[in-house]
C-alpha cells in the first residue's frame, strides 16, 4: 500500500514501524525538528515580512544544505497563517515560492521565471497571456501567438494584487544574479516588490551576499537573514548541547526497532556535518536507508562510513562556509550600530537612568 504525505504525517512512530521500508524512510524524510537557529530565523522573518515594516527585499543566506529551502517552503505559510490568519481571505495566495531557473543560457530568462511564478500560484492559461497596453486614453490588446515576457509580467503583477500575495520567495536566487547585469535583475526584482507591498525573499548560499550588497537599493530597503550553523566554539550559546538535543529528537523518532545511539557521538557528528542540521538530517536518512536494507534491520556503526560526506567534500564545504561566514559577519539583520556588547550595555544603562 502506498501512503500519501498527508497520511504519513498523521502517524506516530509506533504506527510507522509496522509500515513498509519505503514509507518509513519517506516519513523520516518528511520529519523535521525545531531548533534554536531555525526559531531565531523564523522570529526575525516574521518581523520582517510584516507589511508595515519598510524592508522590501529579505535575503535568507546560509551554508549549503542547512535547510533554507525546507524552511522557506514549509514555515512561511504556517507563519503567515499564525500572524495574519485573520486578514487572509480564503481565495488569497499569500505566499508564492519560485525556484529560480538555471537553464544553461547565457542570460537570465525572465520568461521562464514568470512562468514558474505563475505556475506555482496555479494561474490559468499561462501560455495565452496578452499584453494590455493603455496609453493616452486608448486601450489596446496586443495580440501574440504565445505569451510575451511583458504579458507574463503584467499577469504576475495582476495576480499579486488580486490574490493579496504577501511574500514572493525566490529559491536559488544566485542563478538570477550571477550574470554581469545583475543590477538590472535586481531592479526588476525590486519593482516587483513595489507592487502591492509584496516582500521579496531571496534564498541562496553565501554567493548571494556579494550580489545583493552591491545593489544600493538592497542596502536601503533590504535585510540579510543569516541561517547559521552550530559551532563547536560558540561563546554566546552552548551549541554543542543544542546540537545534541537535535540529534536526540531525531533519534527519538527513529522508525526502526533497533535505535542507534547517535546522541553518544554528538560531538563527532557535529564535526562530520559542520554543525549543519540539514547535513545531519541527510546523514541520518542515509544511515536509516542502510539499516533498513540490512539483515533484520539491525544497526551497525559501519553504516556511518557511507552515510557521511567524504572528507574532501566536507573540507570543500567547510572552506566555502567559513569564507562566507567571514564575509557576512556584521552585515546581517540584528548586527546593527547598537549591537556591540559594551556599547549596548552603556546604552541600556543610559536609557535605564533616563527613565
Amino acid at each position, binding site marked *: 500500500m502506498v501512503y500519501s504525505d498527508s497520511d504519513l504525517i498523521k502517524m506516530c512512530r509506533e504506527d510507522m514501524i509496522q509500515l513498509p521500508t519505503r514509507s518509513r524512510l519517506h516519513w523520516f524524510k518528511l520529519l523535521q525538528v525545531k531548533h534554536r537557529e531555525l526559531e531565531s530565523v523564523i522570529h526575525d522573518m516574521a518581523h520582517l515580512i510584516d507589511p508595515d515594516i519598510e524592508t522590501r527585499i529579505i535575503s535568507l543566506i546560509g551554508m549549503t544544505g542547512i535547510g533554507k529551502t525546507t524552511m522557506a517552503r*514549509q514555515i512561511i505559510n504556517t507563519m503567515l497563517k499564525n500572524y495574519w490568519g485573520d486578514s487572509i481571505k480564503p*481565495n488569497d495566495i499569500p505566499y508564492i515560492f519560485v525556484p529560480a531557473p538555471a537553464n544553461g543560457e547565457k542570460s537570465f530568462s525572465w520568461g521562464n521565471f514568470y512562468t514558474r511564478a505563475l505556475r506555482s500560484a496555479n494561474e490559468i*492559461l499561462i501560455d495565452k497571456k496578452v499584453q494590455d497596453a493603455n496609453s493616452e486614453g*486608448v*486601450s489596446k*490588446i496586443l495580440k501574440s501567438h504565445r505569451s510575451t515576457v511583458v504579458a507574463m509580467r503584467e499577469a504576475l503583477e*495582476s495576480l499579486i494584487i488580486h*490574490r493579496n500575495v504577501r511574500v514572493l520567495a525566490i529559491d536559488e536566487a544566485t542563478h538570477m544574479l550571477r550574470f554581469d547585469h545583475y543590477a538590472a535583475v535586481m531592479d526588476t526584482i525590486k519593482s516587483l516588490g513595489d507592487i502591492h507591498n509584496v516582500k521579496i525573499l531571496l534564498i541562496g548560499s553565501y554567493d548571494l551576499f556579494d550580489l545583493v550588497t552591491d545593489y544600493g537599493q538592497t542596502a536601503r530597503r533590504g535585510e540579510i537573514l543569516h541561517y547559521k550553523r552550530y559551532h563547536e566554539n560558540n561563546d554566546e550559546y552552548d551549541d554543542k548541547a543544542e546540537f545534541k538535543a537535535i540529534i536526540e529528537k531525531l533519534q527519538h523518532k527513529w522508525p526502526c526497532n533497533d535505535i542507534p545511539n547517535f546522541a553518544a557521538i554528538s560531538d563527532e557528528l557535529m564535526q562530520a556535518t559542520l554543525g549543519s542540521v540539514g547535513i545531519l538530517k541527510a546523514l541520518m536518512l542515509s544511515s536509516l536507508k542502510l539499516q533498513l536494507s540490512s539483515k533484520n534491520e539491525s544497526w551497525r556503526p559501519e553504516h556511518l562510513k557511507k552515510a557521511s560526506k567524504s572528507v574532501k567534500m566536507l573540507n570543500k564545504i567547510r572552506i566555502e562556509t567559513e569564507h562566507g561566514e567571514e564575509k557576512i559577519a556584521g552585515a546581517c539583520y540584528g548586527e546593527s550600530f547598537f549591537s556591540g556588547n559594551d556599547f549596548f550595555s552603556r546604552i541600556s544603562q543610559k536609557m535605564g537612568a533616563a527613565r
Partner: protein
Amino acid sequence: MSDDYYFDVVSSYGNPSILHPLEPKNIGESTIESLAGYIVRLARAHHISTKNLMVNIIHPAVDQEKSWADSAYATIPLHPGSRTEKWTNVLNQLTGGQKLERCTLVWMQDVIAPQKLISKSQRYCPQCVISCADNGIELFDQLMWRIELVLACPLHKVRLRTATCGAAPAAKSAGLNRRSSAGHCRQCGIKAYRCDTSASEEATKSEVWAASQIADLIKHGASGGILNKNDFIKGMKKVADDICQGYLVRLAKKCGLPKSQTWRWVNDTNSTISLTALLQICSAVHCSLLSLLTGNPTYEPKTDFVRYCNQTHSPLQLKHVEALLRSELKKDAETAALANIAKKLGVTTRSLRDTFPELAARVVKKSTHDRLAAKKLARQRDEEECANLCRLLLEKNLTLTLNNAAKIVGKKWTKNSRMGTIFLRQRMDILDGKM
C-alpha cells in the same frame, strides 16, 4: 506530534479559487455591473482574452458545447432562466463565491418573462462613463444598460447610446481587439467612448420614468432580493381592489391589456409577465414597479408611459440613422428603398417607420418616385433603340423579324422578353402605318 517537530509538507491556504476573486462593481446598487462586463474584467485581470477565458475555462465548466463565435460576448446569459442560473453557479465556484447571480436578472425568473428583456446591442450612458473616466474610476458595463426597455439613464436623464465607434475610418484600425475592455470603444479603443463627440440627447419623461422604475427593481435584486410570484399576485389583487373594486377585467381594460392574459398572470402560478406589460400596469394605475412586484403597491404621481417599439435599440445610434435617412433624401441619384436602408443598418423597416415616421415616409415617396422615373427613362431608351433597329432593317431591305434583329444586335430576343415585346409592337405599328 509534539511542538518540537514539524513535517516538510508544503501547506497551502485552503483551496483558492481557480479565477481571481474579483468583486463585481456596485453590489447592492442600481448601477450594479452586468455579468457580461464582469467576465470581460475578469479576463483582463488574468491578462487573457475574453475568448480564451470563455473557451478554455468557462464553457467547459458549464458544459457548453457551442463554440466561440463573434457574438459570444452578447451570449453571456443575463436573462431570467436556468441557463443564467447555471452560469452564475459555475462562475461563483470559479471565483470563490462573488454573488454573481446579482449581476444578472436570474432573481426575477419566477415573475418576469425572459423574452425580449435583454438588449442585443451594447449600450452606455455617455455621462456616466465620462464621469467615471474623469474621476479615475474603472469603467464597467452596467446591468441596467443591458435591459431593452431602459432607454435613458435615470441619473443623468439622457438617452443611452449604442456602443458604436464615432471615429473616422482611418482611426479605427488603431484598435486591435476591443472586446476585452469594458467602457472602451470596441472598434478604436478610445476610453469612455470619447470617439463619439455628439451631444447627449435629453430623454423624455416617459423614458426617465421607466428607467427609474427599472433601476429601483435592479437595486432590489442587486441587494439580494428575489421576486416571488405570490407577492406579485398579492400586489395585482391589491391594485385591483384599490382601483377597480377588485375586478381584474376592469384593471386589464384600464391598462389596455388582454383580459385573459391578465387573468392568467394572477391565477396561473407558472405564467410570467413581460416587463413592458408591468410598466403599462404601473403607468395606468400610477404605482411603482417594485412595490407592485413585492406585494405592497404604493401610488405615485401620474406619468404617461409610452410603449416602445422593440426595435428602438437598433445597433446604430438614432442620430446616425436620422443622418443616413436625410442624406438619402438629399441624394441626386436614385434613393435606396427603405427596406434596403433598414437592411444596411441591421434593423427592420417597421422600426425605421416607427422611429422616424415622417422621414421614412419621405424616403419611401422619393425612392418610389425615383424608381418610377428611372423605369420610364429606361423604357424610352429601349423604345429608341428598337426604332433605330427597325429603321436599319428596313434600309437593308430585311424583314422585321426577331431573327434578323438578332443578326444586327448580336443576341436573340425572345418574343416575351422586354426588348422583344417592344420590337414586335413597333413592327406592328410600322405595318399598320403608324410609324
